[in-house]
């Protein structure tokens, strides 16, 4: 009997010991993973603004800053559903090709005389369809997302290339130009920025305040455990891919309207940029961690970095290199911090139990 008593006492001791660890790790998690990453990004953003303001007299100008939003709003819109995709442990590298396909479909319809509203509907429908196509192969047939979207990356763009060859659609109706070129009322705020702001609020609400978002987090942490908790994992992943397609369709409308033409190579290389935005925003590439506000900060950070570098006359290619490096650094830093944290935890524990 005394044995039992002893045992229970020791157990309590152990639990208390581990509670100490729990508390500190909770604090660490909060500091490192949530607050700090976003605060760090925000500080970096402020630093960037100050830096470019000093480097170029044209940078800190209300009109210029607003106008710069034209250059990143489309990618920003695409990054929103990509958060859901990456959060739940999937990936989609076909989004830029979906733009090509949707833009091609709109160009084709415009050539046939369709008006602005119809074009928008076509763009959204093609995007949604392409996303559902991806989702079907990934969730219904159980094929890896990377492999499926690598194939559809070629398949989708391949369709517009096969038909358009080296030609372009350049005739779009006047009623279509507002979506990518218009301003809100008499302000200098681009309509594109408003689209992004509204969609960001909507998607942020879904991710952080609804059961759908909670399920996405659960799936990202463990598909298996989510399934055992009664969550229809594959249905949610399918919806994620469909949403990703739909938002690529929205981006296609914005982009096509803004530049007023469709070539097969439209938005080439954007897959990497969109994924960079999400990862830089603090969403873990292995799924389950991150927040939407973090990604919004990353969008602004990268968007104005490019704008600033453009003012400084850096070539587009240098920006591509910079984006690539940022993507890798954004993954490397948390990995490194995790290693340091695990080490420190181990040391602390040894100190607690000599």
């Amino acid at each position, binding site marked *: 009997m005394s*044995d*039992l008593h002893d*045992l*229970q006492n*020791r*157990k309590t001791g*152990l*639990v208390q010991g*581990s*509670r100490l*660890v*729990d*508390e500190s*790790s*909770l604090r660490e*998690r909060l500091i490192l993973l949530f607050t700090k990453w976003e605060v760090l990004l925000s500080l970096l953003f402020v630093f960037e603004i100050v830096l470019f303001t000093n480097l170029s007299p044209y940078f800190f100008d209300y009109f210029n800053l607003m106008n710069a939003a034209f250059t990143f709003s489309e990618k920003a819109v695409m990054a929103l559903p990509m958060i859901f995709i990456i959060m739940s442990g999937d990936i989609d590298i076909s989004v830029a090709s979906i733009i090509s396909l949707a833009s091609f479909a709109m160009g084709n319809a415009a050539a046939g005389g369709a008006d602005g509203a119809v074009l928008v509907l076509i763009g959204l429908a093609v995007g949604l369809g392409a996303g559902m196509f991806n989702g079907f192969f990934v969730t219904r047939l159980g094929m890896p997302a990377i492999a499926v979207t690598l194939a559809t990356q070629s398949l989708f763009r391949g369709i517009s290339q096969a038909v358009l060859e080296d030609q372009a659609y350049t005739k779009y109706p006047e009623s279509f130009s507002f979506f990518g070129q218009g301003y809100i009322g008499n302000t200098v705020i681009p309509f594109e920025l408003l689209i992004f702001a509204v969609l960001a609020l909507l998607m942020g609400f879904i991710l952080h*305040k*609804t*059961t*759908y978002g*909670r*399920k996405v*987090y*659960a799936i*990202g*942490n*463990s598909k*298996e*455990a*989510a*399934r*055992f*908790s*009664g*969550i*229809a994992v594959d249905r949610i992943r399918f919806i994620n891919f469909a949403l990703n397609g739909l938002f690529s369709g929205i981006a296609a409308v914005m982009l096509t309207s803004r530049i007023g033409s469709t070539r097969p190579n439209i938005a080439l290389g954007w897959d990497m940029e969109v994924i960079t935005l999400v990862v830089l925003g603090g969403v873990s590439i292995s799924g*389950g*961690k991150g927040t939407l506000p973090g990604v919004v900060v990353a969008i602004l950070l990268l968007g104005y970095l490019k704008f600033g570098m453009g003012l400084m006359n850096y070539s587009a290619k240098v920006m591509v290199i910079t984006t690539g490096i940022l993507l890798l650094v954004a993954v490397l830093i948390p990995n490194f911090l995790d290693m340091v944290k*695990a080490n420190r*935890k*181990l040391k602390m*524990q*040894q100190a607690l*139990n000599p």
Partner: protein
Amino acid sequence: MDPILEVKDITKYFPGIKALDGVHLCIRPGEVHALIGENGAGKSTLVKILTGVYSITSGQVFLDNRPIEFRNAIEAQEAGIAAIHQEASMFPELSVTENIYMGHHLRNSKTGMIDWKSMKSSTRELLKKMDLAIHPDTLVKNLGVAQRHMVEIAKALSLDARVVIMDEPTSALTLREVEDLYKIVRQLKKAGKAIIFISHKFDEIFEICDYFTVLRDGKYIGEGNVADTTVNNIIRMMVGRSLDQLFPKAEAEVGKRVLEVRGLSQIGYFKDISFTLNQGEILGFFGLVGAGRSELMRTIFGIDPHSAGQVLLDGKPIALTSPKKAMQQGIAFVPEDRQMQGIVLGLSIAKNITLPQIDAVSRAGVLNAGRERSLTEEYGTAMEIRAAGWQVDADTLSGGNQQKVVLAKWLATRPRILILDEPTKGIDVATKAAVHKLVSDLAADGIAVIMVSSELPEVLGMSDRIFVMSEGRITAEFARAEADSDEIMKAATGHSIQQRETNEGEMEAGMMEAVMMEEEKG
């Protein structure tokens, strides 16, 4: 005789867990040494240290009286230590030969190239010595569970090791195969090798082992000659108290029938399963690893499909299409693999508890923080989860507390039927007793419980009725009063040989496809 391998005062930390704490072990040649302890006692950790997979935090290992530290698995192998690991450690897409030789391929001494011919002929010899009718070129994915296990053993033998570690080698073997294994163990012993034999089954320990060491909660408890001890003695060392305290099954009134399973089958996993379950009753499901128990429960919960049969709830057939449907019918399922299936490690305790009914604690898809909090508090408190707060992530909790979270999340759904798959696997003794008490109380409250367990004492102590499964079928049923451990073990292991013959007859009659595959593979 001088020890080959000696472990002195070893301690091992993982982040958040002290897995080993001052452990001793002394292994002599020509000896079968039983390493005994409950799940989570630290046996597997010790094995991984001896095979170079983990490093030690403090303490020392001696080989032939010289201190040694293995930096990786290769060094341990070269020092003559081979292990048959508990986890599936095979390469399904590779051949039997290569599975045996991976990590120590035979190579041509001149060119350094892999010598496939010698590897194949040695494999053939090895398999012949073990009486196994397996071709060396067969891909492992085409082998059955027991055959795979025998190949694992062949792999350890191929190393010509001086110390062979067998981690629960019989958990998936039939009686005949166990006899074959004993033969091999005795051969090794005669050749002067040392064997570390890890097992939960006392009959095995008393049949084959010479010496034993007991661990509990990562600590060294004691050692001795098997011939000089008794089962009760070892149990007392393992759990620190006697059995009746561990299994506090209270008498409960058995009510009306709630669940009936009729002829349920799933190709390749289980066949023709029928049983009934009543209110306030605890049904124990016992069997070997791979007998099909977990698969059966997964099907009843709607996770896996079925090929035939039906399940009736209150006399009405229900559709087994999704876990959500099962939950709506009042079925809850605590799965075997807590870390992978039971709990979402990256989410907080609160989010874990509300996860199964996240739709119920929200309005029109929008989360309701108040309702989430009250649900969490009610069940988290009832389960006595010890943590700094409900917002603590589940991965920082101990195994026992994690299991409490899993139980809380399912009890919060107010189930009528609770299915528990190995509910006390890998948790400490105190929590284990708490879980047993809880299950007993739930049954007393009228909940119908199915408990799958591989621990015979647990099944014997807790169940009103016991079903034994072997190779996908129910082979025996016992009422609590007439349950006998020998009879149960026999039903779990011995029945299969006769069973298999009749099955093959059926198959040839009906299934051309399968026969064709059989021919192809040979």
